[in-house]
């Protein structure tokens, strides 16, 4: 590895668009920026779909209960740990060998979803339901408490069990798919995008087409009226937490697969960003959360890659979050209900 490496040949095929850029910009930096654009978009999409699925959990709970479940990011983290532990244990037992990676991922996803779903329901039962009549600030604080509790519980159990609490997930998919010569999609990234889309479509169908979905929308509109219409409000809320949390947990598994390393504190930053995505799209609105998530991922990726060259290095990639959150503030200033939220009480 220490031998000199052949440098990549940077000469590019003539291209009308590129010529245009060259002529008008007369700057090599621009050309290279156009060159990486596809790769930046691919990275941004992968990240964005991850935000989108986690944002669904925030938006569902907000849509129904009008509380912000700040523990959701940590449920995502627990999902990542459960998934990784399942893979690590089955790897140690030799069960992963010869198993189709898709089957392994599917089983892992199911286990993580069931457990995190149950965790979400448990949290609702213990930390939110007793506070349902209280002022809105109270369940918010309770949520933050649950968030810290989950972080430390995972830290504690992993430290006891493995004597380390940042885990490295066994990689199920290692290949990557080149798209022409302009970009490559790692297989794992593609899987993140596909599974996220499948989960989002399934959720949309569930909410729009099934009896339970209608009940959820009814509870979101008006709890007391819904309960008069023989809807079991508690059950509907439990279901909301079950679905939201299991989606979050599944995303955790995908996150661990995609980035390889996890620790008990990944939920905080990602949760905050997913929450931002939900607000950006209009909190309480499923479609808004999805689009907001993808948008935020793309924004982050684009600003990270291009802000440095555009500002001549004054603002580097380290300021990508500042940029993304500034956009959020602007949206909230001029369209407080979010990009896709409706000002009326039509929620979920």
């Amino acid at each position, binding site marked *: 590895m*220490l031998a000199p490496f052949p440098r990549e040949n940077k000469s590019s095929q003539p291209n009308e668009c590129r010529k245009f850029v060259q002529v008008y910009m007369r700057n090599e930096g621009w050309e290279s920026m156009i*060159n990486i654009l596809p790769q930046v978009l691919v990275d941004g999409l992968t990240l964005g779909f991850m935000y989108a699925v986690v944002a669904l959990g925030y938006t569902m709970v907000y849509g129904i209960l009008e509380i912000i479940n700040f523990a959701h990011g940590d449920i995502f983290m627990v999902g990542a740990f459960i998934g990784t532990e399942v893979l690590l244990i089955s790897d140690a037992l030799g069960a992963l060998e010869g198993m189709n990676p898709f089957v392994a991922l599917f089983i892992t996803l199911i286990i993580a979803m069931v457990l995190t779903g149950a965790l979400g329901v448990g949290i609702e039962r213990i930390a939110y339901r007793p506070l349902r009549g209280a002022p809105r600030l109270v369940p918010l604080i309770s949520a933050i408490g649950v968030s810290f509790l989950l972080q430390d519980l995972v830290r*504690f159990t992993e430290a006891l069990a493995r004597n380390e609490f940042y885990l490295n997930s066994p990689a199920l998919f290692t290949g990557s798919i080149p798209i022409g010569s302009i970009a490559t999609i790692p297989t794992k990234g593609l899987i993140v995008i596909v599974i996220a889309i499948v989960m989002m479509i399934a959720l949309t169908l569930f909410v729009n087409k099934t009896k339970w979905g209608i009940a959820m929308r009814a509870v979101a509109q008006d709890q007391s009226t819904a309960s008069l219409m023989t809807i079991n409000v508690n059950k509907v809320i439990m279901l909301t937490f079950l679905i939201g949390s299991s989606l979050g947990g599944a995303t955790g598994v995908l996150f661990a697969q995609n980035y390889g390393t996890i*620790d008990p504190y990944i939920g905080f930053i990602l949760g905050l960003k997913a929450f931002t995505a939900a607000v950006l799209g209009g909190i309480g609105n499923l479609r808004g959360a999805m689009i907001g998530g993808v948008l935020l991922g793309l924004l982050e990726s684009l600003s990270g*890659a291009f802000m440095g060259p555009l500002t001549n290095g004054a603002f*580097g*990639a*380290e300021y990508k979050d500042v940029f993304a959150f500034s956009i959020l503030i602007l949206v909230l200033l001029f369209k407080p209900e979010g990009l896709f939220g409706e000002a009326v009480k039509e929620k979920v």
Partner: protein
Amino acid sequence: MKKRSYVGVLSAVLAASMALTGCAGNSNSSGGSNASGGQSQPAPSNSGNGKTEGGLIKIATQSPLSGSNSAVGDAIKTGAGYALEKRKEEFKALGFDLQLFPQDDQGDPKIGVSNAEMLISDPDVYGVVGHYNTGVAIPSSVKYEEGKLVMVSPANTGVKLTEEGKKTVHRICARDDAQGPKAALYAKNTLGVKTAYIIHDKTAYGQGLSDQVKMQFEKDGVQILGFEGITQGEKDYSAVLNQVTVKNPDIIFFGGLYPEGGILIKQAREKGFKGYFMGGDGLDSSDMIKIAGAAVEGVVFTSVAGDVTQTEEGKKWAEEYKKVTNKPLETYSVYGFDSMNVILNGVLEATKANGGKKPTREQVLDAVHKTKDFQGQFTKVTFDEKGDNTNADVFIYKFDKDKSIFVGKAE
């Protein structure tokens, strides 16, 4: 019903927090023998009431025992504890009961400072081996200075630490203004790089080291294609790496620690980066391999810690260390060991000067500060006026598939 669930939550929270504090607290059970049979000293140590029964001497360690840097933090603690264990009998003969007092600073400045506060309020604590993170050591050293508690660091390389003029601060390893330039020189002269991209983690350590490397590169005419910061704890660095792939530098220099470094090199290779990847002593951990996987191969790093197994005597020491402590040997293990011995030596000197009685902290501090030509297991220690070791060296390592290989001393 409502009340019951309140109680349920409360008790669950209480139980969890108790369990956690129990975990984070000290485990001073390592000694076994109870401190001089309940002869607790009524007055602070400096009263010196003429008793030959010296009593308890605690030496603390402060390093991250939990959190993402715990692999190295634990190595420092274990190395220091091993040194202390070996000299227990020697101190018992003098009437002192030696005890290790390990603290977990979690790599967090706030926790480091509150631990330091606790340490200076305990009159039996006579010295601190620590820290691992410069960003933790600097604020904590303010407290040590207040309590005249001597600190000997096995691993802090931040220049600022000893430049602040605190008498209590010492380190046995080299500083970043030695490490950074030597790393840059090695990259230019031995690896033959012409262009470089520098990434740092925005911490006192990471950015400080990167600045030193940048300065040397500029002096030598190596073109700097970028100087970017990343956020610690994030897992997706594709934004900055996309810029790197476009500029295609000969080398990425990373100023930071292995949890981020491991992810960076992995994601850089996934994006097709083919050049060198180099870092400072922050990459010096076996966990780097776990995080980066196959991508770790060929990663070069400088370290202020040398390879103790280079000599026959060192090899013997390493075998014994592994057998006794049952822990893997990290390069910082021996630095923890040497730091502890420097402090114990100071305690011994101070006791001698005090006529065999338990010395004061200030006397220990003076004795440690005057350390001259003390031969540790690996490094020779002579402190200069600032508390830096004049014999400190910088070393080059390279990662193979499953371990780091000692390349040599950096000139």
